[in-house]
């Protein structure tokens, strides 16, 4: 993208000279220079505010917020400004910009450095929220996000960064269409980011214990949400589960379950199930930390229990 389009710039804390805290911008500074890979002061609200101005001034900025935890400082610029300028101007203002940030419960970083906040973005009208659950989605998805003429929040997961994955070559990639990563006929499980991988680890156990086949859907975009793919799957399997890492109360998962209940109630043979993090700030202690979020074992256990309860 940066090679093809010189209006694409990156700004954020430590993205340039230092190479990015998670090394995701490594090498870009050397290749494109400090005018395009811009090290900013620690001032998140201004990083996003600057990106808005850059987009107004003719650039396609990618603003990086080091981790989602600090994005709360930028919420005025995200919620009041970038999400609303198009609408408030009657369509006169276009903001081709991306705010890219990793989130999720990492390893023993405690409550202020370890959390998932997608609920805040997906509940804001005018904000596209995309997620990169694997290398393919990261590659094609981020490209798409930069090409769009709308503001995008692009979420990644800190623990997916060190994972080695192949990019699958795709003829076309539409982030607004979810992927069925595993076909099945008895239970639909929707997930994204790290929980998608944990779900896939749990699936063989579930299939064996319940003697069923599980369909797994990978979301690339949380808002807009591809309800069509979800609906087609639920109509086939009659059962719906969503797995997310965020605390359960008021979660994005709650929103999807509401949609499924409203739109697909009479197709369901069992109550929808949410598997989410606990309603607690993330603890530092590793044992407690693992208790606060879903793990492959817990995902398998809860789905098996729920399956037996409802005669699946």
């Amino acid at each position, binding site marked *: 993208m940066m090679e093809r389009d010189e209006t694409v710039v990156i700004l954020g804390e430590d993205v340039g000279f230092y190479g990015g805290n998670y090394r995701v911008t490594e090498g870009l500074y050397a290749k494109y220079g400090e005018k395009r890979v811009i090290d900013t002061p620690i001032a998140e609200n201004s990083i996003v*505010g600057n990106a808005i101005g850059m987009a*107004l001034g003719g650039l396609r900025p990618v603003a990086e917020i080091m981790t989602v935890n600090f994005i709360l400082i930028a919420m005025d610029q995200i919620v009041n400004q970038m999400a609303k300028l*198009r609408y408030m101007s009657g*369509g*006169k203002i276009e903001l081709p910009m991306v705010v890219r940030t990793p989130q999720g419960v990492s390893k023993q970083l405690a409550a202020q450095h370890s959390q998932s906040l997608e609920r805040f973005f997906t509940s804001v009208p005018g904000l596209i929220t995309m997620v990169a659950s694997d290398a393919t989605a990261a590659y094609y998805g981020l490209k798409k996000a930069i090409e769009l003429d709308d503001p995008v929040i692009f979420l990644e997961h800190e623990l997916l960064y060190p994972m080695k994955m192949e990019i699958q070559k795709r003829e076309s990639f539409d982030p607004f269409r979810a992927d069925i990563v595993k076909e099945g006929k008895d239970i639909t499980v929707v997930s994204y980011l790290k929980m998608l991988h944990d779900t896939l680890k749990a699936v063989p156990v579930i299939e064996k214990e319940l003697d069923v086949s599980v369909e797994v859907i990978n979301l690339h975009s949380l808002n807009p949400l591809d309800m069509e793919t979800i609906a087609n799957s639920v109509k086939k399997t009659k059962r719906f589960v969503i797995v997310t890492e965020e605390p359960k109360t008021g979660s994005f998962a709650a929103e999807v379950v509401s949609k499924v209940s409203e739109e697909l109630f009479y197709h369901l043979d069992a109550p929808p199930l949410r598997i989410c993090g606990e309603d607690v700030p993330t603890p530092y202690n590793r044992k407690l930390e693992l208790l606060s979020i879903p793990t492959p074992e817990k995902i398998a256990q809860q789905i098996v229990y729920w399956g037996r309860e409802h005669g699946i």
Partner: protein
Amino acid sequence: MSKSIVERAYYLMKLGRVFEERAKEEYMKGNISGFLHLAIGEEAVHVGATLAFGKGDIFVHYREHVWALAKGMSPKSLMAELFGKKTGVSKGKGGSMHLYEPLLNFYGGNAIVGAQIPHAVGAAYARKYLGHTEGVLVAFGDGATNAGNYYESLNMAALWELPVLFVNENNLYAIGTRIDRASAVKELYKKAKEFMPAERVDGMDFFQVYDAVSKAKEYIETEGKPYYIEFLTYRYEPHSMSDPGDYRSPRELKVFHDKDPVEFLKREGIKRGLFDENFVKEIDERVEEEIEEAVKFALESPEPEDAELFTDIFCEVCTDVVP
């Protein structure tokens, strides 16, 4: 300063004054609703700065009707916006605090105090990067200078050497709190002095505003660095229509009324032989007519269609997939 600029300034200042006085009346009648922040008394800053700044990008705050008029927005589309009509500059979706016209390099209008300051810094970055010659002007009130965004932006503009002109409209009050009760540093330009050249100028005097901004524009565009001007000015009206404004003394009001910027320019213009009584009479009549027409246009304009509720949220690519 050329005669034609002063003539234009008198026309725009009078237009702004009458526009806002009429907006106040229409608010009382119930034709305009929501928040309405009037800038009556601050016209010399809004018009003087806009005329002197010329073509570059302008970012301002929620008290922006006169800035918008000076930048070339039509009183009709502006009044229609205040009426919430389809023909308004933002299709009736923005209202008083959200006026934008990218074709005129006018980017609002912002209802969050100081939020526009980083936008201006980013725009200046983009303009410089793309090799444009014009700088960016951002205006904000005295209240904004006590918030974090303000310091972040001064720092970044100075650090990256960006052509931004910071215009502080010090009207002494942040809503109802007088500056000496909100700011530890009373001379606001001093809050910028560590970052860039900064000065204080009489904001009731069009000639001083115009000269200061002209020089500052020249500086930011040739040096490629930021500059800061604090204008001392005053709003005769309360903060908004819902504010009784009883926190200000009659004596203070009189001091500033005695230097009313529109009357001042009229007097000085005639005294300096830049225009005469006939010109003033002609302009005053023309402005009354224009505003009358704008109100008529706004009144007769249709409401937005119901379907407009769902447009302008996403660009077309995404509109296709949003249910």
